[in-house]
């Protein structure tokens, strides 16, 4: 710390530790510099001057809109899958523009439509710090969802949405899809009514990206995490849920999709109707596989081995979370604990790996506190739990 005793503002600005503090402060940084100014109050002026000069350059930055972010990435994927075609399409596009000038715009439109086919292969981490439930509109503006359980409803035109009791208008030009995104951290959930009437229950720790109004031939949304869908029937426009490892395509039906980045599996559970699943290959080059599900079937895909299993299940086990109830039927304690962690946004450590293998059957009411829930589990399997001073839980063998 003494090193900084005689620093001028220039010296501070030449110091990497100082610059780190201003660009990406950690707790350690904050403490260090606070302590420094307290110990050497005469240096506060120089620190402030240096801070001021840096702040001059931390202006509002150019940001990609959600649309642009996804458009660029879709372009990358298209290119990776069909390296040669791209150039041809590009040339054809130029040709089409010329054609348009002389004759009709039909070809140009066709090519444009084709090139805008969506590939939401984007997987995202729930980065630490995004602990706030929010909706991001296509212009990049954010509205936070304060309640533990919120409701979002779109007007059929898509340019107006109601969040809980507030109405928000989006300025949109006609004939173009505008992407919106909802982020729900652990400990919260929401229900979204999309512009086509489809209802989506978004579980804790999940994100959904969707257009405010569906104008393409397909209704496409992207999901990270878990959601239950009640899709409004439209035979003309199939509804597609894209996740990192598989796509779910339906016409109108009810189903649950679970695709958490931290889980080693993704799963789809069909309640009613029929769905087609497209399992993505492990690399961008390998072929996709198709699987059809019938009601009460659950498909799960192992992300590493790419193995799939389909079996009959009691659907309510997998969908009751939206009513605030966790049902399980000889489920590993491991998995149940993970769900509880997400729901309450808490950390639970299993002291003994054996404990994770205990099978749990029953119903947990998530309106109760995590302590009460752990006590109920304690009644069925020989475990005990403790709470650390930092709020984390430990579960151990009794």
């Amino acid at each position, binding site marked *: 710390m003494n090193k900084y005793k005689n620093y001028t503002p*220039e010296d501070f600005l*030449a110091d990497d530790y100082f*610059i780190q503090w201003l660009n990406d402060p950690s707790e350690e940084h904050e403490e260090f510099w606070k302590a420094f100014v307290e110990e050497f109050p005469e240096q506060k002026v120089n620190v402030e001057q240096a801070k001021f000069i*840096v*702040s001059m350059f*931390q202006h509002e930055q*150019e940001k990609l809109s959600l649309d642009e972010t996804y458009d*660029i990435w879709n372009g990358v994927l298209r290119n990776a899958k069909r390296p040669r075609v791209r150039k041809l399409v590009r040339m054809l596009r130029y040709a089409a523009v010329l054609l348009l000038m002389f004759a009709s715009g039909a070809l140009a439109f066709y090519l444009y439509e084709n090139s805008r086919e969506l590939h939401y292969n984007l997987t995202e981490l729930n980065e630490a710090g995004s602990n706030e439930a929010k909706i991001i509109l296509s212009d990049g503006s954010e509205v936070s969802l304060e309640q533990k359980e919120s409701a979002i409803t779109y007007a059929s035109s898509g340019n107006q949405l109601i969040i809980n009791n507030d109405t928000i208008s989006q300025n949109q030009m006609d004939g173009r899809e505008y992407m919106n995104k909802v982020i729900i951290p652990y400990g919260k959930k929401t229900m979204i009514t999309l512009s086509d009437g489809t209802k989506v229950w978004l579980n804790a720790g999940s994100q959904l990206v969707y257009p405010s109004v569906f104008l393409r031939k397909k209704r496409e949304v992207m999901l990270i995490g878990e959601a239950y869908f009640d899709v409004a029937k439209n035979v003309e426009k199939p509804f597609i849920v894209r996740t990192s490892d598989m796509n779910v395509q339906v016409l109108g039906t009810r189903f649950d999709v679970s695709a958490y980045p931290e889980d080693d599996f993704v799963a789809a559970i069909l309640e009613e109707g029929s769905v087609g699943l497209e399992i993505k290959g492990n690399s961008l080059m390998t072929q996709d596989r198709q699987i059809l599900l019938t009601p009460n079937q659950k498909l799960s895909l192992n992300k590493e081995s790419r193995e799939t299993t389909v079996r009959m299940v009691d659907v309510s086990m997998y969908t009751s979370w939206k009513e605030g109830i966790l049902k399980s039927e000889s489920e590993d304690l491991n998995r149940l604990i993970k769900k509880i962690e997400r729901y309450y946004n808490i950390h639970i450590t299993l002291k003994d790996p054996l404990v994770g293998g205990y099978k749990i059957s029953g119903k947990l009411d998530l309106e109760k506190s995590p302590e009460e829930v752990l006590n109920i589990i304690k009644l069925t399997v020989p475990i005990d739990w403790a709470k650390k001073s930092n709020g984390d839980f430990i579960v151990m063998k009794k």
Partner: protein
Amino acid sequence: MPGHLKENDQTLWSKFLHGNEQVLSLIYLRHANALFDYGCKMTPDRDLVKDSIQDIFCTLIKNRQNLSGTDNIRLYLFKALKRKLVREIQKSHRLQNVDSESAAAFDLAFLHSFDHTEIELNERQKQELVDAVESLTDRQKEAIYLRFTRGLDYKEISMIMNLNYQSSRALIHRAIAKLRDILSVKSDVFNQTLLILLLRKSKPVV
């Protein structure tokens, strides 16, 4: 870039090199906005910046087998974007018969509002600061941007700007000195304002 993310970047990169192409989208998402902002400082053509970012990631997928490990993806991406943009801008200048030497002018639009600072400045001081930044050379602007806006260290800056370590330090030092000169002329006012501010702050709440 937060320390914990940097580590993460490293593991992501090695996963990508070992065949997991899905993780590239994470790398993309993490750096897209910073790259875009950097690119927009070099050209007003937003579409060109977007195309260039897209090309960089296409190239990564295509050349995956020949890529080496890196512990600094951000540096790698910034370098790639700069190379690409400079080439594209020179190309378009040649088409328009513009002197290609002046390609990729670095246009650093900076904070003109001064709203985010505790320090109160009068109109004249503000004007002088604006003039001071405008009078920096393009290379100084770029170095300042990389250091203060993106938080890079001197080693990274020297690699992006093709300088040796000492020159990149000197470049930034000269730029800051220039700003400080202008501030220092007013330093009495500047420091007084601060002093008043400090005194006001340290006063006990009654």
